[in-house]
């Protein structure tokens, strides 16, 4: 075999391996989504949205878990997002080239991928032990700590994209700096900031590990933040690991709900982001 054809052969072998891995990888992910849709839809019915989590062996729904998840997610974002927004604002608007920004950015990137279960342990230490019991509030706090890094990152990136000439124009009109940031920079970066928020919500809505020992679980309907609170991911975990068929199919239904929510949020974020860049 000539050198040229050997090289061509090697190249096409390597390239087929690449195509193969792409096909295999995408097929694996498609199979997972397929199984989720199949099992999820076959267990999905109206009762899932209207009834409480059942004791083993009887029919029921996921209402208390859905409500618990919504409460803790909303509260977590309400606590975490402003903190992240302000920190990101400082990094982009005040200290863009300062040393503290470099350090915060580095630490924030690490927090972004740090194991969420460790965040759960931290919140357990500072709230559950102090209060003496598990509570929805500590669950929300754990989620808030996961929201912060996502929001810091997107806020900084998005404010950095705002052209300096906008700020200069506002300064020339005599506006003080804090008003320039709030009324000019935030407005210009609004789509990006909302994108970050949606991504943060998507990130925390599927989080299970940090809720296991902060919010724990609750078999009954409860909106009391000072008491243990059910959440979809934790209920899915508990029900899927159980030997009861009813529980397992509820777990699939819950898994479908979470995935649908997360995908909807990330697609929404993506559409907003695309609008921003095409403008």
């Amino acid at each position, binding site marked *: 075999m000539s050198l040229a054809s050997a*090289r*061509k052969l*090697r*190249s096409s072998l*390597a*390239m087929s*391996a*690449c*195509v193969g*891995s*792409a096909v295999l*990888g*995408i097929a*694996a*992910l498609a199979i*997972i989504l397929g*199984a989720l849709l199949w099992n999820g839809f076959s267990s999905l019915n109206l009762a899932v949205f209207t009834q409480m989590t059942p004791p083993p062996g009887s029919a029921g729904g996921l209402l208390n878990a859905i409500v618990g998840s919504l409460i803790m997610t909303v509260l977590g974002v309400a606590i975490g997002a402003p*903190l992240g*927004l*302000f*920190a990101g604002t*400082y*990094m982009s608007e*005040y*200290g863009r080239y300062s040393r503290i920004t470099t*350090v*915060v950015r580095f*630490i*924030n990137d*690490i*927090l972004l*991928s*740090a*194991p*969420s*279960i*460790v965040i759960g*342990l*931290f919140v*357990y230490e*500072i709230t559950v032990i102090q209060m003496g019991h598990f509570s929805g509030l500590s669950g929300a706090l754990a989620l808030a700590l996961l929201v912060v890094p996502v929001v810091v990152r997107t806020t900084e990136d998005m404010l950095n994209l705002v052209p300096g000439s906008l700020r200069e124009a506002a300064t020339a009109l005599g506006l003080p*700096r*804090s*008003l320039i940031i*709030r009324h000019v920079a935030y407005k210009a970066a609004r789509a990006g900031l909302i994108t970050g928020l949606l991504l943060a919500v998507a990130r925390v*809505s*599927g*989080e*299970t*590990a940090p809720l*296991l020992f902060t919010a724990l679980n609750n078999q009954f309907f409860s909106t009391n933040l000072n008491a243990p609170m059910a959440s979809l*991911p934790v209920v899915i*975990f508990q029900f899927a690991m159980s030997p009861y068929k009813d529980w397992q199919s509820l*777990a699939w239904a819950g*898994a479908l709900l979470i*995935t649908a929510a*997360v*995908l909807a949020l*990330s697609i929404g974020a*993506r559409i907003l982001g695309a609008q921003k860049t095409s403008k």
Partner: protein
Amino acid sequence: MTQAVLSDHIAAAHGDARARALKGFKLGDVAFHVLTKSSAIAVLLLLGGVIVSLVHGSAPALGEFGFGFLTSQAWNPVTEKFGAGPAIYGTLVISFLALLIAAPMGFGIAVFLTELCPHVLRRPIGVAIELLAGIPSIIYGIWGMFVLAPVLQTTLQPWLINGFADIPVLNDLFAGPPYGIGIFTASIILAIMILPLIASISRDVFETVPPVLKEAAYGIGCTKWEVMRSIVAPYTGVGLVGGVMLALGRALGETMAVTFVIGNAHKIHASILGPGTTISATIANEFTEADGAMYTSSLIALGLVLFVITFFVLAASRLLLARIKRQEGR
């Protein structure tokens, strides 16, 4: 005369209002600056707080067991003897195996997306992969337990056990019985889970290569493989390693995808088909049931170990990825 007094008066009033307004602006400015700066510092304190609280919580266990905690295989809630050996071993082995599967495939997908894929499909496939990277890990876990584990138990695992039965070393690595769940299954789930992450980072990294470099190589007659291997790979090497490290950081700390299929056995087996445990799976499975201060403290100590490992892996990854970013800017 009266008119002059009046205009003086008006000017003074205006001056007052102006001074007040300016003072208000200044106050608002300072307040906002302080608010944002303290938020930025709060992010630092957050990390500090995590470390301090983990050290504080794990002090009893680490004081009792010392450095032996890291290697000990004991895990006995009754006699209150605990060791992190099997959990650390399981975490490292599963993450390593997952990377072994996911890294080459992820690079392959990235090459496919940047070089081979028809242009109309590039964006949809790229977007699909990024969306999949956001799917919660519990979904992968539940799929692994109900779908993948039974399939592996009846097909691949018996085949591996019988196929390597007569080959030394490998027969220990693939020793039966086929449980379905275990280290091997957990690695596969984890690999599927970090695949989108590696693929999308690698693609971004590949796209930093200046087209003129590749065009020059194609111009002197290089094949696609030669361009990838000798031009793109050296140019992007640092970024690729950074991306893999980031995925490793995720894999090490991944909890739910692994907890479902790991089997939670505090033993180090030679066979990778056997059940095992990881740090995060141990904490997730046992934390709420732990009674006794030493038990809880040992679990928190496990969390500290995990945090320290992932911290260094993630820090290394960020430094490497920052380097490729600078290269791009040059």
